[in-house]
């Protein structure tokens, strides 16, 4: 088997984003999805620091530091974009107007709880940013992350051991090994990469994993 690269993961997420969607791509891995969106679609990107209609990064030397994304990287604006203040921007998110939010995570539980802001380490400085608003704001919250940690720890778990960002909010998880739905009956694998069996994937998953693949 061949784990998906980060770019392949981004491409896989992008496939599932319908044309004309309003989407927020979280800091880190999800940012890569922007480059993978189909060119013949109009998918409108929201960045919570006050822009709807975010475009790609500017050419080198063309950076405008008044035009940045939530990760504080320079971006551009597309025709039809709008600027607004922080309360209006979070109202847009918290009011359930975004179709999809894609976030990275440390852990996701089979109840759809997400932990992505704090390792719980005693010397860690807590810093949440917009993560808790993003987790519960959009119509659908998707997670994009490696299936296990670098040292092989489960990230899909029965209960998050790290402090929660939001409860029962994740509907789907895109990993480097699979696409997993979070249902009321727990994790359901709907796609697995070639060369990996459900049993092998189950061993890499910290909670029960049902088979939901259309073709088996």
């Amino acid at each position, binding site marked *: 088997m061949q784990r998906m690269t980060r770019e392949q993961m981004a491409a896989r997420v992008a496939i599932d984003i319908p044309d004309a969607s309003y989407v927020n791509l979280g800091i880190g891995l999800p940012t890569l999805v922007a480059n993978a969106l189909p060119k013949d679609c109009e998918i409108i990107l929201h*960045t*919570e*620091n*006050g*822009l709807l209609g975010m475009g790609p990064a500017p050419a080198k030397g063309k*950076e*405008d*530091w*008044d*035009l*940045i994304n939530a990760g*504080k990287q*320079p971006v551009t*604006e597309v025709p039809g974009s709008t*600027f*607004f*203040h*922080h*309360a209006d*921007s*979070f*109202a847009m*998110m*918290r009011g359930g107007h975004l179709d999809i939010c894609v976030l990275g995570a440390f852990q996701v539980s089979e109840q759809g*709880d997400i932990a992505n802001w*704090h390792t719980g380490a005693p*010397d860690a*400085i*807590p*810093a*949440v*940013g*917009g*993560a*808790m*608003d993003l987790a*519960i*704001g959009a119509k659908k919250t998707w997670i994009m992350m490696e299936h296990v940690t670098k040292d092989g720890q489960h990230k899909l778990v029965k209960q998050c051991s790290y*402090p*929660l*960002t*939001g*409860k029962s909010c994740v509907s789907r998880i895109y990993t480097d090994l699979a696409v997993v739905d979070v249902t009321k009956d727990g994790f359901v694998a709907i796609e697995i990469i070639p060369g990996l069996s459900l049993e092998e994937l189950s061993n890499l998953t910290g909670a029960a994993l049902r088979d939901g693949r259309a073709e088996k």
Partner: protein
Amino acid sequence: MINKIVESIEAAVADIADGSIILIGGFGTAGMPFNLVDALLAQGARDLTIVSNNAGNGETGLAALLKAKRVRKIICSLPRQTDSHVFDGLYRAGEIELEVVPQGNLAERMRAAGAGIGAFFCPTGYGTLLAGDRETRVIDGRNHVLEYPIHGDVALIKALKSDRWGNLVYRKTARNFAPVMATAARVTIAEVSEIVELGALDPEAVPTPGIYVQRVVRVDAKMAVAA
């Protein structure tokens, strides 16, 4: 006649008292009122509570204020950043108090302060450490947390242009927290790049009506740098 333009930045911040709650605009460096923060540093007020999205970057601006030990407490959403070493050091040494607030709550709580809302229920943070021992309630089948307003004594913000009534317009994502903070503080002080004639701003496009602004000072733009 109304004229909110103040001739010097020193005069603009002169009466900020020790112990004040100061709302500081900006998201990273975008919209950060560097000149006003520098003036506050020079002015000398201490024992301050700072409300801002971040807890300082590098060694300048808010970081310099922290380094000079003027800040008792900071209320923000994202203190830890790659270049927040000044804050990190103070925090680890127990020399600064920290209240971490989800970014949307930070904005909405200041909006509530400006809008006369006594408290509000919202779902953000329910079931997390940051909800702490706040009151919760199930509304329409969903768990909510009760959040209270954040009022400021002073707001320091940056805008692009102002007229003498204090009507402010902003530039792109440098708008961020400024319009909200302007409503939440008793005294709002804005640094702007340009003063325009009364009537020169499009009345349909003023995110901050002058009623929310008490003082305006024109500054030469400092080059913003990457956070």
